[in-house]
């Protein structure tokens, strides 16, 4: 007969059981977040849905073999690439891209849209950051739920991190974690990590499709000086300046311009411009959710951009963008992106008629604010199931 377990043993068993239960609950949440399906109902303008591996084979079967939505007009022209989800935790960019994929029509030239440039990063949230796993955009027919995502590729897809990340090919030393940051790994390399391969594949798309302009959509904390602005490679300085002037005068919101620093490597606005013929621009919209002084990090903050602590930081002169009790709602942030993209398209097309890209069907800033982002998301339930694709 075996002896009765001691009190100490019993305590260990209970603690282990509790730990296992917590681990199972957390694991289930992580699993559901990682595998949350995100449907896309391609709009009338989508003429093909390619994969990123079509441009760089070794990406096939990986988490980042993402969809590339192609909108080709009847009339030949130039080519634009709208890059969303380079940092999936900045949702206004992905949502603006969704509006393009589900609504835009192109009459001249070609428009490429990638909704989740770093899909791996969209399947995880900030470790230890207590981020919500997802968020829901209210629509007239219910709602559409999206993965929250993170700034960095999931460690499940790329691990371990080095002690120091040495950027390729500049050999600039960057923070170790940024080896999983797509916007620090451009132009990428074919034999590199998953994130580097992704950057390389995007450059291959740009080169093979003769893309003229790349627009990378982001959001920034209000304590970061590069905010509410277009960061422009020198090739796109005039385009960005005129866009800024037009939007600030007639677009309903102020938009600045910053030059892409030559000494900061790995960023899309620098490396895409340096390593291809394309003009590279990066757009930053304000997102208080990312501010270090924020309060509760929940879905409401993500979507309303309202936070009393960030407002208080503003009163102390610590912010580079204004904020009040109205916050920075998601519709305002999405509308800034759609309007800016449309303005860039129009100025580019006017100045480069032979490489024009003419698009329609996409709401501008005031329209997105008036109707809400959800008004431009299609009802999956009534869509042709054969046409639905998943991110």
């Amino acid at each position, binding site marked *: 007969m075996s002896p009765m377990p001691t009190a100490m043993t019993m305590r260990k068993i209970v603690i282990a059981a509790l730990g296992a239960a917590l681990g199972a609950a957390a694991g289930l949440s992580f699993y559901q977040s990682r595998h949350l399906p995100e449907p896309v109902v391609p709009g009338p303008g989508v003429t093909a849905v390619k994969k990123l591996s079509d441009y760089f084979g070794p990406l096939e079967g990986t988490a980042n073999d993402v969809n590339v939505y192609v909108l080709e007009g009847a009339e030949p022209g130039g080519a634009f690439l709208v890059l969303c989800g380079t940092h999936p935790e900045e949702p206004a960019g992905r949502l603006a891209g969704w509006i393009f994929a589900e609504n835009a029509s192109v009459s001249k030239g070609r428009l490429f849209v990638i909704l989740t440039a770093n899909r791996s990063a969209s399947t995880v949230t900030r470790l230890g950051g207590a981020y919500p796993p997802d968020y829901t955009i209210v629509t007239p027919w219910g709602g559409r739920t999206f993965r929250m995502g993170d700034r960095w590729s999931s460690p499940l897809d790329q691990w371990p991190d080095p002690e120091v990340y040495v950027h390729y090919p500049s050999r600039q030393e960057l923070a170790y974690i940024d080896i999983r940051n797509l916007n620090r790994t451009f132009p990428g390399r074919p034999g590199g990590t998953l994130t580097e391969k992704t950057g390389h594949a995007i450059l291959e798309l740009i080169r093979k499709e003769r893309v003229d302009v790349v627009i990378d959509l982001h959001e920034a904390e209000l304590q970061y*000086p590069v905010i509410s602005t277009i960061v*422009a490679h020198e090739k796109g*300085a*005039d385009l960005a*300046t*005129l866009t*800024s*002037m*037009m939007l*600030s*005068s*007639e*677009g*309903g919101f*102020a938009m*600045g*311009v*910053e*030059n892409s*620093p*030559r*000494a900061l490597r790995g960023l899309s606005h620098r490396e895409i411009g340096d390593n291809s013929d394309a003009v590279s621009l990066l757009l930053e919209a304000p997102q208080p959710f990312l501010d270090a002084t924020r309060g509760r990090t929940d879905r409401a903050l993500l979507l309303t951009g309202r936070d009393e602590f960030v407002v208080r930081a503003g009163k102390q*002169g*610590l912010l*580079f963008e204004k904020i009040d009790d109205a916050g920075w709602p998601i519709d305002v942030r999405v509308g800034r992106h759609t309007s800016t993209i*449309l*303005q860039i398209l*129009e*100025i580019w097309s*006017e100045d480069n008629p032979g490489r024009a890209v003419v698009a329609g069907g996409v709401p*501008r800033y*005031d329209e997105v604010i008036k109707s809400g982002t959800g008004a431009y998301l299609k009802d999956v339930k009534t869509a042709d199931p054969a046409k639905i694709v998943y991110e």
Partner: protein
Amino acid sequence: MTRAHRSPALLLAVLLLTMGAVVPYAGQDKAVKAETPVLVTSCGQSPGPNTIKVVLQRLKLAGDTDPLATAETLKAKAAEGTPYRSVIIVMGASLKGMGAAGISIEDEIKRSEILIAEAKKAGLTVIGAHVEGMKRRAQGATAGDTTDEQSIDAVAPRSDILLIYKEGNSDGRFTVISKAGNIPLIEVEKMMDFVPALEKLFGK
């Protein structure tokens, strides 16, 4: 927004037709004029000079942009037989811009002072411009960063004309400088108003 307002070319045409109504001259000197060719430069390496450059290009006004222009730039152009007639120095500093150029605000102030002295000696019109609003003022910079204001101090009081985006003068700083030095102040309400403002200034 109408389609006309989204098109730079159409908007330009509308602005030019109505330019008397859209260019406020706070300096009250309606005879303020300058001549081309014009050299556009910076004091602080902000992206601002590109705004002026884009407007000059749209207006097809003769000029060059060199963010690091020196007195030698003026002399070289004069030696070619096509001297500059005006210099536009865009005020406002960018720490990133200066860092990328490997220079400090002290270097920029010194360069600007020598450039202005040479311009005055050669009879050029010096136009101090501030085009990026409060974002390019100390109020919009990192706490303790006064480089924007140092740039303004170096250029604005020595200018013959001040060309200012009104939002950046919301504290009246340029109005005070204008009145103190009797310097004509051209304020524009909207960014696109720089088009008719420069059109009128250069008398095209």
